[in-house]
């Protein structure tokens, strides 16, 4: 296992940013979208070059600038970062196809702005994935908040502006108010912010201070939407569906969970947290959020809002995995980043496709829609199964590892919480499927011949649903990366 000093991480991070000038200056919409594809494929190619070495246990590093003592702006590609970058970038390709279908079908305004900020958001997400220390991660985390803001408030009406303010208020408020002082304190105690420095030594600070620091960082990374800092996520659903699907189900929210995972394993160190029993704080917060979010999801009639609360619950699985601090638990948590990503993005794609084809946003009005949109609803079914964790879908595997982690460390209560949460997931997803296929259409437009959304809105969810199934049988790239990272 050795470290390769190479500029490749920087190139990979910068690849999505290359698309931005092209997107802005493109003459026609087709050329503009070609830039997004070109950047996404370039990014994938650069990642693919690094995968073999990373799978062999090596890391790539690159230092951009020595800015603060013990905290340079530096990149490191390890297994965990690679896993997250692969998920985000491969789904970026699919989402771009979907965005084209969705944005053109809805005849959305300001599409250039939309695609531009979309590319820069991916840039920030990959930056977070490849950050070598807390400072670099904070840098990209902040930039991501600001690049997503115009996407959240895309519709520019009073409702979406309010959502934008709420989004910024929660995300930036917590990152400056909580993460920044915590980061200064960590630097004060350890003199370093690097994730590979072995964490805070036990004697460096007393246990009260460490507890406070942990809480500051848990809730400070509000993109992970732990309760009570989850409020922004349902509000952000006013954004166009491609934003909700890639950013608010995958890239942005998982950046939050990713940061928490990194902080737990890299900044504090598993030994320190276990010695002070602080892992119970993490699992406790995660368990409460998991159950509460699922219960709230049951009562939501807005399809995207129900999906949003489901996301809040599912993100806590990842945080739970971090809190378990066993190999199986960490593997499960990291694996859940990819498994949930493919499942949840499918569901959002379907919600958007329904909206594009019929204009419906509420679950109570979806009776019998399966007759009209069979392909969409099939994808929806598979996505739901993956989130619930029923084989043969990828979601089963990550939950399996998480359950193993709970039982392995004797955390029976947490195992029970996981099972109850899965039941709740079924309780809020399966009725939608039931309505779609087994209730008679009470809206005239849902009956009759098959009339799906445009092809570009149908193919992406089918692809991601297909991948969710394939991942059950062949999870190895993600599973190996997660195992490697957990060890």
């Amino acid at each position, binding site marked *: 296992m050795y470290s390769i000093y190479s500029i490749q991480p920087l190139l990979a991070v910068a690849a999505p940013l290359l698309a931005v000038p092209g997107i802005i200056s493109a003459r026609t919409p087709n050329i503009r979208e070609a830039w997004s594809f070109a950047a996404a494929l370039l990014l994938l190619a650069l990642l693919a070059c690094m995968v073999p070495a990373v799978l062999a246990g090596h890391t790539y590093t690159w230092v*951009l*600038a*020595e*800015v*603060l*003592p013990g905290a*340079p*702006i530096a990149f490191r590609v390890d297994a965990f970062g690679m896993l997250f970058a692969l998920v985000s970038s491969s789904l970026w390709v699919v989402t771009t196809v979907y965005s084209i279908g969705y944005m053109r079908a809805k005849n959305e305004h300001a599409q250039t702005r939309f695609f531009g900020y979309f590319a820069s958001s991916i840039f920030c997400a990959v930056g977070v994935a490849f950050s070598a220390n807390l*400072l670099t991660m*904070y*840098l990209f985390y*902040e*930039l991501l908040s*600001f690049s997503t*803001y*115009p996407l959240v*408030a895309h519709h*520019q009406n009073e409702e979406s*502006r309010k959502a*934008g*303010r709420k989004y*910024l208020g929660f995300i*930036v*408020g917590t990152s*400056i*108010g909580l993460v*920044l*002082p915590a980061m*200064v*304190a960590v*630097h*004060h105690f350890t003199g370093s912010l690097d994730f590979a420095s072995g964490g805070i030594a036990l004697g460096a600070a007393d246990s009260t201070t460490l507890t406070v620091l942990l809480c500051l960082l848990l809730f400070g990374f509000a993109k992970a939407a732990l309760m009570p800092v989850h409020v922004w996520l349902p509000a952000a659903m006013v954004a166009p569906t491609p934003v909700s699907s890639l950013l608010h189900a995958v890239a942005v929210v998982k950046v939050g969970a990713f940061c928490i995972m990194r902080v737990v394993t890299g900044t504090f160190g598993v030994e320190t947290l276990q010695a002070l029993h602080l892992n119970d704080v993490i699992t406790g917060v995660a368990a409460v959020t998991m159950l509460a979010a699922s219960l709230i999801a049951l009562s939501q009639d807005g399809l995207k809002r129900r999906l949003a609360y489901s996301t809040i619950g599912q993100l806590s699985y990842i945080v739970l995995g971090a809190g378990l601090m066993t190999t199986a638990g960490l593997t499960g948590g990291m694996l859940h980043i990819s498994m949930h990503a493919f499942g949840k993005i499918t569901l959002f794609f379907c919600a958007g496709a329904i909206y594009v084809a019929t204009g419906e946003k509420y679950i109570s009005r979806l009776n019998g829609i399966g007759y009209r949109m069979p392909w969409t609803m099939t994808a929806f079914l598979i996505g739901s199964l993956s989130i619930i964790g029923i084989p043969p879908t990828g979601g089963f595997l990550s939950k399996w590892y998480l359950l193993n982690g709970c039982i392995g460390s004797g955390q029976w209560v947490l195992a029970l919480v996981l099972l109850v949460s899965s039941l709740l997931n079924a309780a809020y997803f399966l009725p939608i499927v039931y309505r779609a296929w087994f209730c008679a259409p009470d809206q005239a437009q849902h009956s009759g011949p098959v009339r799906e959304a445009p092809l570009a809105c149908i193919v992406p969810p089918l692809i991601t649903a297909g991948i969710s199934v394939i991942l059950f049988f062949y999870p190895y790239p993600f599973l190996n990366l997660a195992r490697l990272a957990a060890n």
Partner: protein
Amino acid sequence: MHDVVLTLLPLLLGAFLATLAGWTRSVLAYPVGAIALLTSFGFAVKLLCSVLAHGTATYLLGGWSPPWGIVFVVDTFSAGMLVLISASALFTFLAFRAEILDHFAEKSAAFVALFMLTVAGHMGIVATGDLFNLYVLIEVAALSGYALLGFGTGRSPLASLNYLCIGSVGASFYLLGVGYLYMLTGSLNMADLARIIAASPVTVSMHGAVGVILLGLWVKMALFPFHGWLPGAYGMTSPVSATLMAPLTTKVMVYVVIRILISVLPGASIPDAIPAVAVTLATAAIFVGSVMAFRQTDQRRMLAYILVAEVGYMVGGVFIGNRTAMTGAMLHVFADSLMTLTLFMAVGSIARQRGEMTLGNLSGLFRTMPFTMAAFVLGAMSMIGVPPLFGFFSKWYLLSGALASGQYVFMAGLLVSSLVNVVLFFRLFETAFFDAPGESVRDIEHWSRVTPLAIVAVLLIVAGLSSGLIVDRLIAGIIPASLI
């Protein structure tokens, strides 16, 4: 001739020539000014290089050796300041050519001359090694500054008069304190004073002298509660004067305080009460500045109140009393100058197109003036403290230093002010980004204004990424080893 003199001489000469041109051919005044600033900037850069290579540069005025003669002493920190001041003045002068020429049509030569004198005064303050000479240069900078700030519409002469009254009180306190010091020690030369003070017993009169000097400087730098003159003076004057003065005056006064603390009083001759009072005032300045900024409808006055808060940042850093916080304050002098310059330049350009700077008047700016707004965003992000912009790193050192000394309220002040800045700037961005520009709007973005602005804005990123280098090369060597 010596580089130190060569940074100042072109400006004095330029002021003289511009006045002459005003009597004969006033079109020549602007080019004369531009050449003077450019030359001065060039020598400042040369001086910085030579100081970095060979160490502190000393120049004896008229060949008289200290402590009797006047000396100019330029170390790495002051050389950096000289580059900063001359560059900031040069960029302002180039970007606001249109205003200087047609705003003050028949007075443009006088305006250019005053501009040169103000810059020369500020650069002299930074370069001098003599406390009385410092007073003279403070007055040179201030008197020409009052006149510059009086150029403007509406109430700006009154605001400038207000500034003149308060500023004179501050300068008088400073002079009084220097007088006491002279009575006690018989010297005015900084290095000489430091030697004598270190060797002499600590007395009440010494404490009194130091206290009065600091009080005078606090008034001059608009530290709360002496900040009353600043919003009026910067908020009402012409954008040129505001853009020239806002990045310089308060920061140069903070520089003077830092210089006196580290070069004249490095020992324990400061009474214990002063740091405590200073940090308290600084914290209050941050909170009051932020709250007042939030309440403004005019965006220029809002920026002026942000400056009041920023003064609090620096004074707090200086008086917290550890190395990290001092580093933060010194770095923030650079960072705050640069981001204030960016914001005021951008606002100046916008004000020329839109007139009133109320929120409702700023709709659609991102569409009509994209480059100006991009620069404005960078300046704002730096004020908020987003990495990798310059403002983040100085804030980091300040936070870190405050934590090390247990100054939690000051820390909270820094964080609250960052959060208030988010609200202030995004309130503006929301209108400028999402609202459509009005029917009658005909905004023009000319390259001659955008280029200097773009350079300054990009410098915020470059300086941020090189902040490690800046601390290492310009700042770390200056802070006395006794400060831990």
